[in-house]
């Protein structure tokens, strides 16, 4: 993996992580907002400025790819590179969680 990708996405923001997680199934920006709201019982409400900026950045870095447009909404999906980054992050968060459980 590219050093540039590692530097930006490892570790990544909570927003970035949720976007990649949701895009394992094709979805559009607002769809992700709704999914995350449901998953976190309303604790995390992603906002359009952050969402639009993150999607553009991730598409440019080829972590996600544009599939098609539906009613003026762009539908994206994760790429193999995105999956790779997500797996690294998942491992990091798992470790974090394990250590937290042991000591807290």
């Amino acid at each position, binding site marked *: 993996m590219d050093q540039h990708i590692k530097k930006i996405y490892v570790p990544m923001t909570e927003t970035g992580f949720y976007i990649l997680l949701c895009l394992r199934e094709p979805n559009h*920006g607002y769809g992700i*907002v709704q999914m995350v709201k449901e998953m976190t019982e*309303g604790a995390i*409400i*992603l906002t*359009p*400025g952050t*969402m639009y*900026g993150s999607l553009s950045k991730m598409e*440019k870095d080829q972590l996600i790819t544009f599939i098609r447009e539906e009613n003026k909404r762009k539908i994206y999906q994760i790429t193999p590179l995105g999956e790779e980054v997500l797996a690294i992050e998942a491992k990091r968060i798992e470790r974090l969680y394990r250590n937290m459980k042991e000591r807290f």
Partner: protein
Amino acid sequence: MKQTKKQFKYFSLAQYKQEQDYLQKMHRNGWKLTHISCLSVYHFEKCTPEDVVYQLDFQTEVMDQSEYIQMFQDCGWEYLLDCVGYSYFRKPVAEMDGPEEIFCDDESRLDMMRRIYKKRMVPLIIMFFCCIVPQLLRTIANAKESSLDRSLSILFVVAFMLYIVSFVTFGIQFFQYKRGIKRG
């Protein structure tokens, strides 16, 4: 006949926060923004006073404007207008669950400042060092002999000040977010 009013207000490049606050205050006083002309003339229309949050976004890679606006509309933000790279949105506080902005983390706020820096600040800095500063020095040096240069030098002093204000406010905001990220 709708009651309207115009107001001249200058905000430097990075003072979008102050601009948002100004527009929110106007709406609270019963004046909603309709459009902006000549970069700094704000046009308002009389309305019922309401607490409405105004937000400015700066995106540089919008390929499809309607898709961009759609995402904001889906999230309840009304699109107003575009002005020198900024897009203006608003949303009534009554429709929010808590305090809401179009950005939800400091990383994306910083990303927006990076975009402003790349697209707008770098050309300004080049202008500043290649035009404003040399012209200011030249007119000041000639001010004693030439009355034209004397008046021009005042103009360049004003430009110089405005530039410095832009740079400083931009720098302060940038480092505030950066500190915020480190703390978090």
